[in-house]
């Protein structure tokens, strides 16, 4: 795993980190903080959001955002576990746990977004 696949996971981590850095703050602000403050209640009405999200461009955007955020976490968390718990980052259970979760999340996102 280490020699051949490491660049692959790092590329997902780097792209995911960039996407997350640019997009996650505004999404949390709109869908979490502003929602609670009552500022965006109308914008998040069921019919409106369903229409907005159903557009093919929105589906692709949300799929990329969710999937890459998960892969960003997976790679970073794998190394944080290694440094924090003094495990080897190459230890298979850690890799399977992290990347496996991200793959699972990606598949679920694909299923949900395809069927909307």
């Amino acid at each position, binding site marked *: 795993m280490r020699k051949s696949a490491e660049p692959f996971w790092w590329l997902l981590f780097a792209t995911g980190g960039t996407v997350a850095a640019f997009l996650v703050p505004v999404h949390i602000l709109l869908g979490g903080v502003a929602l609670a403050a009552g500022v965006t209640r109308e914008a998040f009405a069921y019919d409106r959001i369903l229409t907005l999200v159903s557009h093919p461009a929105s589906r692709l955007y949300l799929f990329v955002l969710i999937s890459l*955020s998960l892969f960003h976490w997976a790679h970073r*968390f794998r190394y944080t576990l290694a440094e924090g718990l003094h495990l080897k980052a190459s230890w298979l259970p850690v890799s399977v746990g992290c990347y496996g979760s991200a793959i699972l999340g990606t598949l679920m996102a694909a299923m949900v977004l395809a069927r*909307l």
Partner: protein
Amino acid sequence: MSPFHRPPQFNWWVGNRAFTLFVVRELTSVFVAAYAVLALLLLRNLALGRDAYEAYLRWLVTPGMVAFHIVALVAALYHSTTWFALSPKAMVVRIGGRRVPPRVVVSANYLAWIIVSVIVAVIVLRA
């Protein structure tokens, strides 16, 4: 008479400000992933119908979830600011044989961030 080996410390990141901030920075990825999961749940509840979706929104504004969102926002902002600060290290841009100063690369990232955030906000609120 072999050399003396000092064993690695498990708590290497405690008590050293730079190292502690590094671990905090790395753990922001947990909040990024957590928010991705919440976004996925929103979409799933959207697919399940009006009642499920509105119940989900009501859950999102409970005090516990609001607290989570505030912490997640702070974490996401820390991720963004540290990510942009480090971006010149990987991306060396050369124009006319000289390297573009790192702070220009950082500023360009911040500018792009503001523009993209405004576009997303406009789409979500007004489209």
